[in-house]
C-alpha cells in the first residue's frame, strides 16, 4: 500500500511540475508507465480527472502510441527487434520459434505470467542484427537456438534453485 501511495505521489509531483497542462499529457503518460509498468484503465481515468481532460482524449492519445502498454507484463521480457536490418537477418524465425516453444503470440504473455514477448521497431543496433532483448539486455547476432536456450534457462532457473 505504501508503495502505491509513493507512486501516486510521484505521479502527482510530475503533474504539478508540468502545471497540469494539457500539453504535458505525453510526458505524464510516460511517467505513469515508468512508475506502474503499464497504464490500467483506472489509472487513465484518474489522470483524466487530475488533468481535467475528457477520458476519450486521454485514452485516445495513450492508445495512439505503441510505446504505451495497457496490460501488465510478464515477469520476464523478451523483445524482438523487427526493424529492417533484423528482418533481413532473419529475426522472424526466432520470433516464430519463441511463439511455438512457449505457446504465446507476439504482444502477449504466457498463461502463468512468466514471460512476455514484445516486438519493437528498431533499437538502432542494426549492425548487430538480428537483435533480441531479454530483460533489457541486448543480445546481438542472436540465433534461434541460443535465444530459446537462454529463455529456458531463465524460466527454469527458479525451479532448479529451489529443488
Amino acid at each position: 500500500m505504501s508503495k502505491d501511495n509513493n507512486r501516486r505521489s510521484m505521479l502527482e509531483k510530475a503533474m504539478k511540475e508540468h502545471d497540469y497542462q494539457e500539453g504535458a499529457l505525453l510526458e505524464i503518460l510516460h511517467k505513469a508507465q515508468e512508475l506502474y509498468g503499464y497504464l490500467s484503465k483506472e489509472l487513465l481515468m484518474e489522470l483524466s480527472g487530475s488533468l481535467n481532460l475528457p477520458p476519450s482524449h486521454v485514452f485516445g492519445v495513450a492508445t495512439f502510441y505503441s510505446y504505451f502498454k495497457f496490460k501488465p507484463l510478464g515477469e520476464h521480457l523478451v523483445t524482438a527487434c523487427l526493424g529492417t536490418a533484423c528482418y533481413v537477418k532473419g529475426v522472424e524465425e526466432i520470433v516464430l520459434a519463441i511463439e511455438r516453444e512457449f505457446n504465446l503470440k507476439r504482444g502477449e504473455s504466457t498463461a502463468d505470467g512468466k514471460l512476455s514477448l514484445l516486438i519493437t521497431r528498431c533499437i538502432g543496433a542494426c549492425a548487430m542484427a538480428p537483435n533480441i532483448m531479454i530483460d533489457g539486455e541486448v543480445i546481438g547476432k542472436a540465433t534461434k537456438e541460443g535465444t530459446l536456450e537462454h529463455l529456458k534457462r531463465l524460466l527454469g532457473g527458479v525451479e532448479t534453485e529451489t529443488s
Partner: protein
Amino acid sequence: MEGSKLKLADIQKIAEHELDFQRAYVHRINVCCSSACVHLGALKVLKAFEDAIKEFEVERECKVAKTGCIGTCSVGPVVIIDSGGRARPRLYQNVTPEKVRKIVQDNIVLGLPAAEMLYKNEAFFKKQHRLVLRNVGKIDPSRIQDYIAMGGYSAIVKCLATMTPQGIIYEVVNSGLRGRGGAGFPTGQKWSMVARAHDSPKYVVANLDEGDPGVFANRTLAEADPHAIIEGMLIAAYAIGAEKGYIYARAEYPLAIETLQKAINQARAMSLIGGSVLETPFKFDLELRFGAGAFVAGEETAILASVEGRRAMPRPRPPYPANSGLWGKPTLIQNVETLANIPIIVQNGGAWFAKIGTPKCTGTKCFSLTGEINNPGLIEVPMGTTLREVVFEIGGGVPEGRKFKAVLVGGPSGGCLPENLLDLPIDYDSLAKVGAIMGSGGIVVLDDKSCMVDTAKFFTDFCVEESCGRCTPCRAGLARVQEIYKGIIEANGKMEDITTLEKAGVYIKEASLCGLGQTAPNPVLTTLRYFKDEYFEHIKEKVCRAGKCFKKEKEV
C-alpha cells in the same frame, strides 16, 4: 565557472583552458560508448583501461574518455588511441577487457601498435567525408568543454558578436543546404519563411524522431555530439527570432535522451540557454520532449501535434508550420542532422559548404549501412557518391558466397534498387527519379536470400501498422495492398493483382495527405519495376526463389 554568468568572450577562454588541459596528456584513449558498443560491453572495456593505466603507472600521460559512435559497429567495442600530432590515431576493434592490458602495454608503454587488434579496413573510412560527424571519436559527448575545445559554440559567438539574423540566413541560403529529414526542402528558404512571419512567439523544433526501422544515424549523432545539435538550434533561433525550442526524441533511444539531457543541463549552467544567451539581448530556452513509438510523428505537422501532447496525426498544409506551427505560431522544424551542419556553415561560410557534394545537393549525408554487408555501420559521404561506392567500397560488399540482389534506400518507404542502378549518385533528385527517397538515411543491402515480394510485404505491413488512419488512401489503400500480398504469398495470387498493385500504388502516392502515405507504396512500386520476374514466379509458378514464401502455412 558555473554559476557566474558567462559572456561571449568566455567561450574562447574555456576553449584555451581545455586545450591546455588536454595538452598535458600524451595519449587520449577514446572508448566508443554508443548504444551498439555498450551492448557489446564497452563500459567494461572503459573500466579496464582505467585500471590498466594505473597498473602500468601511465596515468599522468593518458586520458581515458568515452566517445560517440565511430561507425564500425560490427566490430565493436572499438577504441581509438590518439597520441597527438606525431602519429595517426589508432583504431582497435573487438576490444574486450582481457585485451586491454596488451593494448596499453604495446601502444602506450612501448609505443607500438597492438597489431593483431588494429582495425585494418582502410576502405571503410577512405571515401567518407565527416562534417556532421566531425567530432565523433574525438570528444567525450558528456563534456561540454570537449566540444568547446574543438571550436564548438564559437559559431553562435560569431553570430551574436558579428552577424545579423539576415546575414546568417544569407549564408545558409548560399550553402545550398537541404533538409536532411528526407524531403530535402532548402533550409535557407525555410528559415526566411519563418523569419518573415509576423506572429510571435516563434519556435524551433529539432526532429529526432527517427522512426525508420533500420536507421540509426540521428541517434548516433545525438549520442556522439549533442552540443552540435543544440548550437545549431541556437543559431537557427537567433536567425528566425525564436525564444523557445524543443527537441523531440524517440523514447526508444534511452542513451541519446540521457546524453541530450545532460548536454542541455550543461549548456544551461554555462548560460548558453535558459535566458539571455551569454549576456546578450538574445534569449533562448530548450526542452526535451519524448515520442512514444509512432512512425508518423516524424512528419512535420504530426510532430507538432505530438509536442502539444495530442495524437500525432498530420494535418493538411497550408498553412505551413512556418506560419502556423506549435500552438498556431510560426515554427521552424528541422532534422537534427540539418541542425548539426549549421555551426560549420556559419564558421566557414555558405560558399565553402556549397563546394562539397554536387551543385544541386551540397554537403554530406549520414547513412546507416546495414543488412547483408561486410562492414555495416554509420557512414557519412559527400552527396553524389554512388551507391556502388557505398555498398562495395565502404561497405565491403555482401559476405562471401552470397550474391548482391538489391539495395533498399530510404527506410520502409524507400525504394528497392537493383544492381544496374548502383552507379546512381546519391542525391535527392537522382533517388526520386528511380522511385526511392533519401529518407532519413537508411541503406539496407539485400542478398539472394531475400525475396522481393516478401520484402515489399514487410514494408507494407509496417506502413499499415503505422498509418495514422486520418486519410482514406493511406488507411484503406495500404490495407488493400497488404491483402493482395497476403494472397500472393499464400499461393492465391492472380495475374491481375500486379495491375491492381501498380494502380493502387500510384493512387496512394498521389492522394495521401502526408509523407507517410505519399511514400509508403515506394517499395511496392520499385519491386514491381525492377523485380517483376519474381512476382510472375510467385503468381504463375507458385515458386519463391529465395525460399521465403509459401512455407509459412506448413510451419504454423
